[in-house]
Each structure stands twice: as C-alpha cells, then as structure tokens.
C-alpha cells in the first residue's frame, strides 16, 4: 500500500515539475520541450513499477518495467532476429511495394477522372475491410513466411497512401494550374513541375500514416501463421507460455521501431517539403 501511495506522490510531483517546466521561465527552451515528455514517460514507468509491486499484481498479468527491461537486455539476439524477420523483411518490403504502387496508381487515377470517380469509392469500401479478416486469407495465399506479411502490409498501406496522393495531386490552386496553361505546358510537364511537388505534403502524410500501419500489419499477420520467428510469433507464443515479460519486450521493440520509422519519414519530409508553411514556422 505504501508503494501505491508513493506512486501517487511521485505522479503528483512529476506533474508539478512538468507544469513548472512548461509554463515557467524555461517554457520556451529546447530542454523543456524534450524533458517534459521524457519526464512524463519516466513517471508512467515508475508508477507502473510501484503499483505492480505495491498491489502484488501477478507477473503473468502485468510484469513490472524493471523485469521487462531485464528480459529485453537478456534476449537481444532473439529480439533482433524477430525484428529482422518482421520489420526488415515483412514490413519494409510491404511498405515499399504498397506505397510505391499506390503512388503510381494515384497518378493514373488522377489522370483519368473516370477512374478517380469509380475507383476511390470502391477503394474506400475496400479500405474498410478489417485487416484481421484479410490476414488469414493472405497467409493462405502467400504462405507462412514473410511474403504473406508483406502482402498484408501492402493491403493495409495501399489505400491510405492512394487517397492521400490523389488528394495531393489535386491540391494545386487554380492559379498555379492556369499559369502552366498560359505556358501551354503539356501533361507531363505540369505533372513534374507542378503537381508532384505540390502533392508532397500529402504524400508524406500518407507515408507517415503508413509507417505505423506497416508495423502493426506485419505483426498481426504473424498471428495467423508464421515460421517460428518474428515479433508477432513471439508475442503470441509468449502469451501462451505466460512469459509476459517477453511479450512486453517485443512491444517495446515495436514502439521503438515504429517511432524511429515514423521519425525517419518525418525527417525526410522536412527535407523534401521544407517550403511548406507547416515546416517553416
């Protein structure tokens, strides 16, 4: 019980510290911008640890963060091999194929208005097909290895990417298009010099959404059949073995990799769409 009260005290104290950091004299400094979320994250972990220990929560229900950290450190090779299988092979290949083909299809769809009006509503409908239903089908079609995971990721990222890219390609002002018209520019010239650059903020929006989807898709697909390797395999097997610490270690890997993947795309976005008001400040 004392541990739980301690957790409460720490929570309040950390919140007060964060409130001071955000609103006090340091509020505009870079340090505060980084420290505040970190302090918040650390507080969550400490409170988690104290509550789990204080209330004697069974390790097979929720292990404390310290145990998870230990498991993480001891199983680095396994975690790494799983990540290579799931992220390196399944997610990344699916991400590239899915986003790449959506990009190309978007350009074609955008060119022919008939396709746009026909394909987008159907696409929206297909995008609503729940992935957990599609995954077993794709595992049946593409086998147990990473290819089926890749296929699931392709299906998951395709429509968000398509919709965003199509929206982006249309996101030019009438004036920008008229300008091209006054130069009597052809379709490809307009595409390359106007529409593609103008579409980039949308394209990156799609790419960012797709990062988290790719990761989740690859992991989920492994629940429906896999080799004896991979993050989804490990999570599902470890739950069965009541090795919850290992489950959480994999979740940590997923969160780290997901955030890193997202961050990487955001970084590239910053370079490519440096001109967009949202990137300028």
């Amino acid at each position, binding site marked *: 019980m004392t541990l739980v009260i301690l957790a409460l005290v720490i929570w309040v104290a950390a919140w007060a510290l964060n409130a001071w950091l955000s609103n006090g004299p340091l509020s505009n400094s870079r340090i505060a911008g980084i420290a505040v979320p970190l302090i918040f994250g650390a507080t969550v972990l400490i409170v988690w640890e104290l509550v789990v220990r204080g209330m004697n929560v*069974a390790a097979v229900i929720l292990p404390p963060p310290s145990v998870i950290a230990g498991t993480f450190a001891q199983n680095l090779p396994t975690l790494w091999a799983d990540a290579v299988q799931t992220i390196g092979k399944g997610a990344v290949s699916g991400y590239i194929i899915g986003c790449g083909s959506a990009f190309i299809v978007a350009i074609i769809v955008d060119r022919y208005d008939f396709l746009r009006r026909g394909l987008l509503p159907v696409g929206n409908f297909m995008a609503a097909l729940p992935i957990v239903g599609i995954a077993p089908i794709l595992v*049946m079609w593409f086998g147990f290895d990473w290819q089926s995971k890749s296929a699931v990721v392709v299906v998951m990222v395709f429509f968000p990417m398509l919709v965003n890219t199509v929206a982006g390609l249309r996101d030019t002002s009438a004036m920008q298009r008229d300008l091209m018209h006054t130069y009597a520019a052809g379709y490809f010239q307009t595409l390359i010099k106007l529409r593609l650059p103008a579409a980039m903020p949308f394209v990156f929006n799609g790419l960012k959404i797709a990062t988290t989807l790719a990761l989740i898709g690859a992991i989920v697909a492994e629940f429906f059949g*896999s080799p004896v390797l991979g993050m989804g395999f490990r999570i*599902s097997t470890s739950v*069965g*073995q009541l090795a919850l610490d290992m489950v959480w270690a994999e979740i940590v890997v997923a969160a780290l990799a997901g955030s890193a993947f997202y961050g990487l795309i955001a970084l590239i976005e910053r370079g490519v769409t440096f001109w967009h008001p949202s990137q300028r400040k």
Partner: protein
Amino acid sequence: ADDVTLQLKWVTQAQFAGYYVALDQGFYEEADLNVTILPGGPDIAPGQVLAGGGADVMVDWLPSALAAREKGLPIVNIAQPFKTSGLMLTCWKDSGITGPEDFAGHTLGVWFFGNEYPFLSWMSQEGISTDGGEDGVTVLKQGFNVDPLLQRQADCISTMTYNEFGQVLEAGVTEDELVTFKYEDVGVATLEDGLYVLEDQLEDPAFVDKMVRFVAASMQGWKWAEENPEEAAMIVLDYDETGAQTEEHQIYMMGEVAKLTAGSNGALDEADYQRTVDTLLAGGSDPVITMVPEGAWTHAITDEALN
C-alpha cells in the same frame, strides 16, 4: 448457490461437452453451483485468466500447466477427465514420410501458444533439430485450421483425433492418402484437458468444497455425454454463440472425445502423470521443464468427489 467460473482452453465444441452437459442437464444446479463457462479462443491464455481472478478453474494441458508452474504460476491439477491423448501428427503419404526418421528436411505445422511442448519433447527425444536445415525439420506456426496440409504448405500438421483429423477427412482426403502419428502410439503422449486451480485457493475449505461438487458434477456430465454422444453434441451446439459449429462435425467430435475420456473416472492417474513429466524432462538440451515439479497435482478433490 456458489458461483464457479470455468475457463475453457478453446472455443465451444464437443471437446468440452462434459461441462456443457452438466450445465444443461442441471448437474451443477443440483450440486448447488452457479457455473459460468467462458469459452477460450486464440491467444487467450487460460492460466492468465486464472491468475487474474477471472476464473476459478480452468481446462488446460498438463505440459503447459507444468511449464506455467515452473514460470511461477502455482497451478494444481485437481481432476483429469481425459485419460488418453488425442494429439497426432498427420502427414501426406506421398511426401515419403513413413516414420520419425524421415522427418528431416520436411516442413511440419505445429500449434504454439503452449501447445508446442509435446511436439518439442518428441522431437528432442528423436534428436531432430527444429531449426530447419538439411537434417532438421522446418517448423511452421500453424494457424487454426488444416489448410496448410490441404494446400501442401506443410507435409505434416498437428491434428487432434477429434477435430482437425476429421476436418481433413471431411475435405475429401482418404485415410490411405495419409500417414498419421498418434503421440499415444509413439510413446510421447502427455496428459491433455485436465482441471486446474490456483494452489493457494486450495487452503480455503469453502473453495475446496465448491470444487469437490464441481468436479463431481462435471464427471457426471462427462459420463452422460459418453453415453448420449448425439444429444451431448446438440447441447454443445446450443451453447455455441458463434453459430459456426456444424451438427455433423460435433457429433463426430463427441464420438472421438468419448474414446479419450473413456478410461478416466476423473482422478489423475499417477502413472500417466509420471509419463508426461518424464517426456517433458527428457528433452535433451532443451527440455520443456527443467526440474521435477512438486505439488502440481492433488487427489484431494477427486477423492472427495468420486466416492
């Protein structure tokens, strides 16, 4: 009436007919019990539910129960309605497999989620590596169905006599196209579907009393089911909320399950238990359990319930 919650290992099907019959026929009610049956499903670990207090008693396989016990979850077998193992490996005959010695180089489908222990024990007893390669086997984590076999993504898959094997046959495959290895026959049988509770709960006489009545009524249900397989199957069907089970398949399943429960009066047979433990310990470099488990079962309940 006392409340009892039972967590099943898998979805509602004739594998658990005894409990549904006891519920349906009022055996639990007669024992002054108010029983709730929670069906299981993929990725629901019954042990976790038990540990979290979501259930009082669960159905599990002994290997995974022992492994969980070694992991620090103090669960105890209080009854063992299944005498015989229904687990088997089913292979295409045309894959050229005639015995375990031919497994090398083939792809085998295995259930994980705590169901892999019997397979791993068997393989390590045979000295076959499960890491793929020339003289090992490639293991797939098979999903919930027999497609990997039918579509030849694997040469062998795990099946239960009462369920997946039937499905293979229902899909039009004849028995002479197949080679089957029953764990029971190759000497690595482990105890399946037993009833487990948390150890510390057994110190509570009221709980013990509840379990005594529960086990007694459940065994009454099992015996009724063995005697009336078709009606039992229909009862199971009535309790299946997904509406997915078919009459035909459940009747088949009940028939096969009855063969597995046949030899048991509900009390754990120590010899069977010992054989399971030996099998699990025998796993060479990578045994499923590392120490001889202690206190993993008790006759306290069944002694009381069955006299």
